[in-house]
């Protein structure tokens, strides 16, 4: 059926579509959110990178100024240097210590200045030797494996004396906590050494991790800035808009479905309306047909009455006029009374016709009662016989008795028989010849009781046969074509059937079958 095929009729299909839509939307949201977050991380990274680069450059500047200071006099002004270094460290907390070392001609490294003071006695860093190996003025970073959280920046200074300045830097101070976003993991590394933030790269709960990595713009300390931003599923998916979308789309889908169903039902109801209209048109036509049948049978009845009454009236009129003349002065009393007798006879005949007609037309609701169809055939035959013999037609009866009873309206059945007999008589009258017979036979056909009305007329031609019971179909010049149609209606009303039997060259034959009542089986037992 058409109405089953359209989408969204089933809520399951609707929900499937909805889930799909929401999934696509969520995917788009994630992509969008991630790329936005990525841009954020990138922006943050660039900002931090700029800060980092500036700060590490500051170390170079300090080294340069300290180098200038230590070379300002010979011997280096240790006290001034200390003061300057102390000042630097006060402002730059990430610088943990500043040392100025000298390598004596006998290859011994001595500490000229060490800030803070407690550093003086401490162990000389292992890389100090290396600093002196640097070119004059060159600065280089060092990381001690056992203290990876710090790094050192050593600069070779002095021309006559061999001097070295070493800064110890806390990388955690390179970026202040305020500068870091709390959600981001920021790590700094220098070459292979991780200076800060050695947390695992991927946090287990994270939906995705956005990264930023760039070494600081510095030749001396290319501190790598790494940023990792774990993005939770919640953040990536942005549940509020997704939920809003889900809700909205669900509503929209249901609204769409509702609209479609409405439209569909409107169409459906239109179809129903059209169907109902069609049905009412058919009903109307049926009513018209029934009316036509009624009018026709009334007309037939009227013309039948007129025809039947014409004969006795003609006789009565002529005979009365004859009687008037016979009752005159030179009348003949014997012939007069003969005429009057005949008049009485004719008047009675007319009365009889009228009585028969009254019985026939006594219209009433179909009253089905158990009847013996043989009796009905008998009655119909009795009524028809006089007319038939007048027309030179013999009526033969072959009645089976006893006969199981059938549930039917005797008057209606008699009407059917009357119609069939009249048709047969009309057909017989059209042909010449001595053998004009109508045979009515009743017989028990098991489940049904049957009446066969056959004649010796010209029969029914094969082309007429299929249309025989059609209303308004007729082969008679003046017929309306409703007689057999009415017969069929009446017989079918009683639950029976009527059919014409094709017997080419043998005259017409009609078979009426009515369901036999079950009582006969009881009676038989």
């Amino acid at each position, binding site marked *: 059926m058409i109405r089953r095929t359209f989408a969204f009729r089933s809520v399951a299909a609707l929900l499937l579509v909805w889930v799909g839509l929401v999934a696509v939307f969520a995917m788009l949201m994630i992509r969008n959110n991630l790329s936005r977050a990525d841009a954020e991380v990138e922006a943050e990274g660039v900002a931090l990178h700029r800060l980092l680069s500036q700060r590490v450059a500051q170390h170079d500047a300090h080294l340069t100024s300290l180098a200038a200071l230590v070379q300002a006099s010979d011997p280096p002004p240790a006290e001034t240097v200390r003061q300057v270094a102390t000042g630097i460290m006060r402002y730059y907390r990430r610088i943990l210590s500043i040392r100025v070392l000298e390598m004596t001609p006998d290859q011994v490294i001595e500490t000229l200045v060490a800030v803070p003071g407690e550093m003086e006695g401490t162990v000389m860093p292992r890389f100090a030797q290396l600093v002196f190996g640097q070119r004059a003025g060159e600065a280089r970073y060092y990381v001690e494996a056992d203290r990876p959280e710090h790094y050192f920046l050593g600069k070779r200074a002095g021309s006559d004396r061999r001097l070295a300045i070493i800064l110890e830097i806390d990388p955690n101070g390179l970026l202040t906590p305020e500068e870091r976003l709390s959600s981001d993991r920021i790590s700094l590394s220098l070459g292979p050494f991780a200076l800060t933030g050695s947390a695992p790269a991927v946090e287990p709960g994270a939906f995705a991790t956005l990264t930023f990595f760039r070494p600081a713009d510095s030749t001396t300390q290319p501190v790598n800035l790494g940023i990792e931003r774990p993005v939770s599923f919640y953040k990536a998916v942005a549940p509020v808009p997704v939920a809003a979308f889900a809700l909205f789309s669900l509503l929209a889908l249901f609204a769409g479905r509702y609209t479609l169903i409405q439209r569909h039902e409107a169409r459906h109801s239109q179809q129903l309306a059209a169907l109902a209209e069609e049905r009412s048109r058919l009903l109307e036509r049926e009513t018209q047909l029934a009316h036509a049948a009624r009018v026709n049978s009334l007309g037939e009845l009227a*013309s039948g009455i*007129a*025809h039947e009454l*014409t*004969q*006795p*009236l*003609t*006789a*009565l*009129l*002529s*005979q009365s*006029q*004859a009687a008037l*003349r*016979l009752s005159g002065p030179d009348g003949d009393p014997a*012939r007069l009374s*003969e*005429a009057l007798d*005949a008049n009485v*006879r*004719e008047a009675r*005949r007319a009365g009889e016709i009228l009585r028969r007609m009254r019985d026939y037309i006594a219209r009433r609701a179909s009253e089905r009662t158990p009847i013996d169809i043989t009796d009905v055939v008998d009655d119909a035959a009795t009524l028809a016989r006089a007319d038939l013999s*007048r*027309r*030179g037609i013999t009526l033969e009866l072959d009645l089976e008795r006893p006969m199981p009873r059938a549930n039917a309206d005797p008057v209606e059945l008699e009407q059917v028989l009357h119609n069939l007999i009249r048709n047969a008589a009309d057909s017989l*009258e*059209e042909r010449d010849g001595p053998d004009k017979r109508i045979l009515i036979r009743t017989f028990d056909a098991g489940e049904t009781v049957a009446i066969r009305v056959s004649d010796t007329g010209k029969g029914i031609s094969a082309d007429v046969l299929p249309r025989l019971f059609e209303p308004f179909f007729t082969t008679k010049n003046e017929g309306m074509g409703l007689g057999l149609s009415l017969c069929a209606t009446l017989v079918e009303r009683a639950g029976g059937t009527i059919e014409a039997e094709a017997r080419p060259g043998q005259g017409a034959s009609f078979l009426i079958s009515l369901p036999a009542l079950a009582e006969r089986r009881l009676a038989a037992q």
Partner: protein
Amino acid sequence: MSAPRIYLVDDDAAVRQALTLLLSTYGMTVEAFADPETFLAHVDPERPGCLLLDLRMPMISGIQLKEKLAARGIDWPAVMITGHGDVNACRRAFRAGVVDFLTKPVDEQVLLDALGTAARALDALMERREAASLLASLTEREREVLDMVCRGWATKEIAAALSVSPRTIDAHRANIAEKLGTCSVADFVRMTLNSRVLGSSTDSAR
């Protein structure tokens, strides 16, 4: 005009009886038959009469009856009475030789008028018949002479036209007068015209 013989064909015994009785009170001789077949079996061309026909199927039976009668040289006038509605249809289908169509029940006077008309028609028919048969007894020469007499020619003129002596023409005229039973020129003319009317009416009926 003597009371004509009436041949009544009606399938209803009561109607037959009543009409027979009524018409007999007017001194008419009525011979009644139940159907066309019986009538045809008994009809005698030598006993002419008016037909009073009540046919159940007027068109078909009427035309058939008319054809069968014509086959026997009978074209007596007929009055149709019918209980069937469409008289006009009957009239159209069965016009020739039918003087009137009446519907049942038929009133005495109407019936008598129609039968009177039929009787007159029958008389005229018989007269024409007679004239025709008398004329038929003439020889070719006599007919020629009669023709000229009817045109008003004198004996001398006829003799001149036929290149015979006037005496011969006189002999022909005497023979003609004997055969036709009259010596009046007016009678000659009437008989000749009648016979022509008969001929032409027979032609048109065919």
